[in-house]
């Protein structure tokens, strides 16, 4: 049978225990998974100006801003409870953390409404138009 039979469930009850955490979308690829001293370095040195936040990471200047999740939406971080050993295997995910806003950073460029991630937040409302029930 094809791999399309495997199931990935999300244990929603885990939402109750999930911690609210700050999330940052960084404009670089960090080849690492695991702990990082985010609050000690990034949060501690971030400056809030009127229109943007500034910080530097690895000696490069970043500019960013906060983005809220669209109304009716919640940010979730899903984690595998057991490491899946193969593609065929059923997986169970839990909600490890939640967020209602994220901070995204551009490399040197001030944040603006043309940034792809800002525009991507249009999607839920358009999806509602395309997928909402149609009256008879």
């Amino acid at each position, binding site marked *: 049978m094809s791999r*399309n039979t495997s199931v990935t469930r999300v244990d*929603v009850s885990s939402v109750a225990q999930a911690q609210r955490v700050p999330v940052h979308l960084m404009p670089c690829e960090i080849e690492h998974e695991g702990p990082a*001293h985010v609050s000690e370095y990034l949060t501690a040195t971030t400056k809030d100006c009127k229109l943007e936040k500034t910080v530097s990471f690895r000696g490069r200047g970043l500019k960013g801003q906060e983005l809220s999740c669209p109304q009716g939406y919640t940010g979730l971080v899903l984690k595998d409870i057991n490491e899946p050993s193969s593609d065929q295997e059923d997986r169970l*995910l839990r909600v*490890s953390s939640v967020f209602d806003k994220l901070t995204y950073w551009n490399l040197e460029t001030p944040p603006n409404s043309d940034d792809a*991630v800002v525009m991507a937040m249009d999607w839920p409302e358009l999806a509602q138009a*395309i*997928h909402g029930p149609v009256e008879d």
Partner: protein
Amino acid sequence: MATKKKRTPNAHTSSRVVIAADSAIDTQKHDSDPAFVRLRNPATDATSLYMLSGGDLQLFEVKAFEEDFHSWFIGQTVQRDGRLLFVTPMDPLYLILPYLIKSGKEGKFQPVDQVVMDDEFPACSRLLSCTRSLASLHHITEEKEVGTQRFHRYSQERTMNWLKKKVERTVSVLKARNISVGERVKSTTYITMKSESDYRDEDYLRYAHGLVSEYLSQHLSKDLLTHLQLPELKSPKETEPPSKKRKLTDKPVEAEEDYTKFNSAEFARKPPKKMTAAQKSLAKGDKTGMKTMSSFFSPKVKAEKK
């Protein structure tokens, strides 16, 4: 300077960052968990990822926002995979539709549970458990009731009317959200060729048709275009006059020495080197957008068609 290291493939990701509709993770309503499932994408016929809520009552679409060279900091951790997934409510009829069209060719009324079956995607029968599925089948089928059993037959006419309503709703949201449906020319360094208020209804209609077509086979998408009385457009290469192409070069002029910048705390600032939105969209070579552009440049296309 130290040498730059090559990128290694990202084989392992332990977590996913998701923005999900609250209804997808409602803990109150259901006793079973939501699940990601693989189903047949109605537009491409390929595998796509969707989500069914607990008890399969609601269907969700999964889309990934992905830019190259991005990673996440989540709390006190780093995650290499910088994608952001969107889980948004989806109309199950779009996924059911191809199965009904296929069986509709036989012209018979049939029970839907015998039609919505797929060896390759066994989860597809669960679509019928969605609250909205059976309640809205009349949008795309004719129905017959024999005793306690219901029978359905695909109706092109009903489907077109249903899709037209979808398109119209999409148009109104595009207008309300002020989404740029023409070529993106929002830029201070450019003369705006077309302001938002100048978009014609046809631009919106075409754009909305394009969006809805993301969930339709090419064939059905064409039928819908006809139903909306929108003429097909020729390929942009044939219609766009080359003389009217916009300039691509727009290098910001930087003074070689500018000491004023040393006089303030703003010292570290330099004008960012960024492509303008117009350059971006041109460089992207997005043909869908150029169609609208070309129709703007040569309004005769329509007349030629008729």
